[in-house]
């Protein structure tokens, strides 16, 4: 649910619940995107990686 949906109400419950969901999804999305972009750059540069 987003603020532009007809069910949305600007109250604490909606902001906390939905805000928490978007917050978690944003962290995961940014983290994953960073890894993918960096992997693409490393591959183009031919960088030698090693696993931990």
């Amino acid at each position, binding site marked *: *649910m987003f603020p532009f*949906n007809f*069910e949305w109400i600007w109250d604490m*419950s*909606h902001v*906390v*619940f*939905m805000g*928490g*969901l978007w917050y*978690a*999804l944003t*962290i*995961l999305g940014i*983290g*994953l995107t*960073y*890894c*993918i972009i*960096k*992997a*693409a750059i*490393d*591959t183009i540069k*031919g*960088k030698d*990686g*090693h*696993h*931990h």
Partner: protein
Amino acid sequence: MDSALIPKGVKRCPLWQFALFIGAVGVVLAWGVYAMLLCWFKGLNQTNMNDYYGFALWIWADLAVIAIGGGAFFTGLCRYIFGKDELKSIINYAVLIGFICYSSALLILAIDIGQPLRGWFIFWHANVHSMLTEVAFCLTCYFGVLTIEYIPLLLENRQVDRVPFFHHLGHNMHEIMALFAATGAFLSFFHQGSLGGVAGVLFGRPFAFREGLYIWPWTFFLFTWSAAACGPCFTILVTKITEKATRKKLVKDNAIELLAKISGWMILTYSIAKTADTWYWATVTAPSKGLTWDFFYSNNPLYGKWILFTEIILCGFVPAFILVTKKGRKNVPALWIAVTLAVIGVSLNRWVMVLQVMAVPVMTFDYWAMYFPSWQEIATTILPVAYGVIMIAFSHRYLPVFPHEAELNPVEPLPSDEEQLAAAVEEMVDVEQELKPAEA
């Protein structure tokens, strides 16, 4: 035939033997899938749920797998946030077990909602006053975290790792794994807690109702605590079973001992807190509603007073005392007993907080409602077990799940290899003898 996919330096059974095993477990899986399809196509009339038991075997199984899958978030927290490097030996397996548990939980929920095509309603038309909405959000996000934690393991497969992009991707994901682990711990804290909170806020069900802190009843904290305490025990138990099945040592002793020690202290403190909570509920909360505690325990086969003793003493304090002592942790049979009891204990706690809550009469015309699941419910509950066994079998065969396996189980060269090696060395010696000292 599939040797190119098997990790280097480890030995696996022949492919035909592996295929036979997967086929046998696959039959059980197919049985579960058949029952699942019956529930989806014919509806929830395939179950024995009724007006008393709106939550039944599935919800118990759901809560139990989420609790025992808590080993993933807690082990990840200890490894990546608290820097316990000894756990490196077991962290991959903890993630795999967590992934299986949480995907199973989501699968069970997909069956339980009856109309899985409307599963997305909980996100789009969310009831923001429900603790179960929070559970659904956190559960889904945490499953995403576990998937992200499992992907690097897939990328480490020998053939996949040869592709430079996947190699770098796996490496980069390892680099920022602490971020994902911290997010996972945050999400786990809330969804484990909210599952307990659902029971604790039921003021119409005096067996479950608890006071608490602000909006969170004590059951909120007890559920998170018990999952963090007993989840690692399930990880140890599955590791030990895998070691027995493969007849190999897969994880270093110091990793098992550290995890067992942490788990032991967590179980001990949890058991003390649970005892205090039960005591307060029995002497203050229940009497304030005009009830005595023995009203909630009947002489029927399912919900006697024995269940309280079994949960708190036998499956709480006993494993805790075994695991907090060095002698107990190092003794293999004692370790087996302790981790098994802890897993039974947390599962029993979820049983009590879901099923017994439903069974206790709350109206004057009510009676102690008994329930026995239909075969479809049993089959769909066994389905995730078969799925888990297959996932573990494939992951163990083709992925480097146990980073110290090769070191702990050095592969002896085959006789033909030894002969070839000896011939090569002999040849080299001959060549060197023909050379002048400086050339040699």
